[in-house]
Structure formats: C-alpha cells, structure tokens
C-alpha cells in the first residue's frame, strides 16, 4: 500500500533546503552552463552542422539544458541525504512514521523541482544566443520529467549508499559526469567512431538528451519512441531499487 502521509512536508522541506542556498544550487549551475555555451558555441559555431539547417549553438542549447536538469536532480537528493547522514539530522526522519513511499516521492519530487528550475534558468539565459523552435513540445516535457525523476531516484540510491562525501564525489565524477558527457550533449553521437557510437547506445543518458532535443528540432538520432522506452524503463528500474533500499532500511536502520 502506498502511504504518503507526511510526504508533503518532506517535499517542501527538501525544496526549501535548496532554495535557501539558491546561489549555490541554482545560480551556479546556470552560470556554468552559460560558460559552456559561450566557449563551445564560439569555437564550434559554423564548423559543424549536426542536423540539417540547425546551427551548432541552437543544437547545443537543449543539450545544456538537459545536462543541467539531470546533474542537478541527481545532486539534490544525493547531497541532501549524505549531508543529513553525516551531520546526524537524518534521525528526525528516521524517528518519523514516514513510509518508504513518502521518502521516495518527497526526495525524488524535490529533485525534479530543482532540476526543472535549473533547466529553466539555463534555457532563459541561453535562449537569446540562438532562439530555438519548439517542433514537438510534448517530448520536451516528457523527457524532462522522466530524466529528472530518474536522476533524482539515482541520487537517492547514491545518497543511501555513500557514507562519506568523497564516496559521493566519486559517484558523481566517475559515473554521472562521464555518462552525461558521453551522451551527446556537445555533439551528435553519429559523428563518433562506430565503437563509441555503440557504447553511447548503451547509455540511458543518450536517450534522454536525444529525445529531449527531438522536442525542439523534430529530428533525432533515434526514434523518440525508443528513447521513451529506454528512459521510462530505466526510471522504473532505478525507482524499484530505490524503493527497495528504503523499505529494507539499507544503511539507515542497521
């Protein structure tokens, strides 16, 4: 049975937590994305044309938006949990009657909000450089919601697993960063050698970026329906693992 009593409070608390330090959690990633756009856009504009009739800067903007959504959704649940574990204040939640569903919905929900707020911020500051089209806007919404949800759930798993900040940094630097960079944010995977093209197709992040871009340009490397299947399936699997860990009290209730 899904019991959600108290989830609303935990959700608002998690949103309030990142909002109170918004300079660090929202403004900083927006600035980083803008730097990427200024540098890569300036260097590459006019040299590559990934999709017919789409300039490089236009191509890059949705990629940067989605990358920011994914990284910040992951960062929210993972860093909140690890901080609470290390400072010990997770005990307030552990003493509460919140069910594993309530934990999941609140942490993942707040992560999605952070991802979407940062994504919107990145879009608003980059859109002026090359106004994009919104060819199939529903895909934009679908992939943004599913992508942020999956990364929020993945952050929950990482936060439960990590006992120290350096373990979390390892998870972020050796798993999340390579997967986002090798997902086609900065290029079309079709420009890669065959081997790396095949490797990219094993990366669920690739489908999130590709499906998201489809919404802007109406064209993509693979069918958006395939992307939807991969991303939706990954979301279900990651969520099931996170819920299982919460239910069994993995590293929470020894």
């Amino acid at each position, binding site marked *: 049975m899904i*019991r959600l*009593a*108290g989830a*609303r*409070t*935990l959700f*608002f*608390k998690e949103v*309030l*937590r990142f909002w*109170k*330090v918004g300079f660090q959690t929202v403004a900083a990633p927006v600035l980083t994305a803008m730097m990427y756009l200024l540098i890569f856009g300036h260097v590459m504009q006019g040299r590559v044309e990934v999709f017919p009739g789409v300039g490089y800067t236009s191509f890059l903007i949705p990629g940067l938006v989605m990358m920011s959504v994914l990284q910040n959704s992951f960062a929210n649940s993972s860093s909140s949990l690890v901080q*609470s574990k290390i*400072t*010990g*204040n997770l*005990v*307030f*939640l*552990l*003493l*509460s*009657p*919140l*069910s594993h569903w309530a934990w999941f919905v609140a942490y993942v929900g707040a992560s999605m909000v952070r991802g979407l707020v940062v994504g919107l911020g990145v879009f608003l500051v980059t859109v002026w450089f090359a106004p994009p089209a919104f060819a199939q806007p529903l895909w934009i919404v679908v992939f943004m919601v599913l992508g942020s949800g999956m990364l929020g759930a993945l952050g929950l798993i990482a936060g439960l697993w990590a006992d120290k900040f350096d373990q979390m940094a390892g998870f972020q630097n050796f798993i999340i960063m390579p997967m986002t960079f090798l997902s086609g944010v900065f290029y079309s995977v079709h420009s890669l050698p065959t081997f790396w093209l095949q490797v990219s197709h094993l990366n669920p992040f690739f489908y999130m970026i590709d499906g998201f871009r489809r919404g802007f340009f109406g064209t993509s490397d693979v069918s958006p329906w395939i992307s939807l299947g991969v991303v939706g399936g990954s979301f279900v699997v990651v969520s099931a693992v996170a819920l299982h860990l919460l239910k069994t*009290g993995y590293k929470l*209730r*020894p």
Partner: protein
Amino acid sequence: MPAVSFQQVEKTYTGASGTFRALDSVSFDIPQGEFFGLLGPNGAGKTTLISVLAGLTRPSGGRVTVMGFDVQRDAAAARKALGVVPQELVFDPFFTVREALRIQSGYFGVRRNGAWIDELLEHLGLTDKADANMRQLSGGMKRRVLVAQALVHRPPVIVLDEPTAGVDVELRQTLWAFIARLNREGHTVLLTTHYLEEAEALCHRIGMLKQGKLVALDRTANLLAATASTMLRFKTDQALPAALAGQARVTGRIVQLKARDAADVERLLAALREAQVRIEDLEIGRADLEDVFLEIMHAGGRQPALDGATGLGDVPASAGVAA
C-alpha cells in the same frame, strides 16, 4: 497494556573483530504513566536498547512494543506513540527553530499545530529564539529544541537519552520541571542519564544494564533500601589502612565507606583511630543511588545484588515471558 514492552531483546553485531553482543535477552515492561530510569555504564547497551525501541536499529531477536504496537511490524503506529530526544546534539542547519518544529510536526501528519508549538517554545524558554537559525543557538539551546522536536506530536511515551549531558543547571531544572509535569499529566517517560541524583529524584522505577544484560530492576526506593543503607563520609589527607582502602570510594580528599549498621560504623571509626588517620567533616548519611549503582556494577563475576529477570516483587508479570 504496558506503554513499552521489551521481550527477550537481543542485538548482536558481527564485525572483523568477532561477534559483539550489545543486548542479551533484555526483558521488562514500563507501565503507562511511569517515570522509568535506565542506568548503566558507557557501552552497557542503553542507547542500543533505545535505538531498537525507536526503530533506528533492528533487533537480532525478541520483540519490542510501544502502546501495544510492534516497533518492527507496525512501525508507523509505534513511532507515532513515541517522542525521542536523541543523545547526539543534532540539528538541521538550514532552518529556524520554528521551521524545524513545524517540519517535524508535518512528518507526523500533524498540521495547524501552532498553539502547541508556541506552548513548547515557552515552556522550554525558546520563545525569543523561535526565529533564530539553528546554527546560531548555543549547545544548551539546541538541546531544548531537540526536546521540543520530540514532543511536537504529543506522544504518549517520551524517551530521553542523556538529555542533560553538558547542559547548565538552569536548563536542567527547567527541563525536569516540564518533563515532570508531562509525566503527571499521564505521559510515560523513559530516561537514561549519567546524573544519578536526577534518576533518584525523578524515577519511580530503575533498571540497570551491564554488558547488555538487565542486572537490576526495581522501585527506586527498594533499590536504595536493599543495599548498604549507611554511608560514612569524611575528609582526610592521609592514606587509609589497607583493610579499609579496599572498600573505600575516594574522590580527592573525600572518602566514603559503606556501613551496614551502627556497630559497623563504630568498627570503621575504631579502625581509623587505630591507624591514627586524622579525619575532618565526618558525616553519617544514607546511601544514595550512586552507591547502589556502584555496588551492582562492581558485583563482578558473582550474582548481582538484585536481578530483575528473576523477579523482585515489583517486576510486572509479563516481564521475562518470551514472545
């Protein structure tokens, strides 16, 4: 129905250095409305027992209930009935005092709780700190907030794990006045403390843990009566004769010697006179809980002076019965 029931609770930790038995078949009940003290030296298992009660740790065996709810199988209901003040001075640095209390209240599904939160703030002397960030508070103030957080959902059972460790005298008195009031109003209180005079003054009944086992369980008055009832206290700068040194408790210049009766007092004084020990400020008084505690904890290999598991009058009938 007891407020809290521990039934053959076991907790074993297996690590690289072998198996450690933190709790060894602990069984006792705390009736509703009681003020119960759980005592024991560091590492005796007090915090482990409370962690099992609060659902923070899973027992390796046995069963614990709070107001009839099993803490494992009916965890949500058990946790709603429980307010726990943790031993560690933890806080969430993102929020103010009032925000922290509202959030904790919301976790328990209690909304529009402003009046009770105001009352808690007032009773714990926190009203003028309500809108201060948790980080700005002194250690004693943070401790008060922990107490308020534990009480925010009006739990029938209150657990205080070393609530006065490192806390100034004024807060201790405010805190105990408030907790005693809640106890009079019907709340059950389970307290662990290192300040034995607090336990003696407040607790109706006392349980003592030693190496994970319950070694004493009785009414505070009975515990005091059952041990050596007289203590000889004096000050001296000289060494005690060997015969007395072994049984004396020495704190700086202060020496305490246990005496069974008046004749024993005379025997001790005679021994001191014979050894030509100059003594000052001689007092003859009743033994306090600290004496009882030390006697039980130093019982060593032999059978402890009191054994709750074998039943000392006051042990509820259901204690010690396997689930």
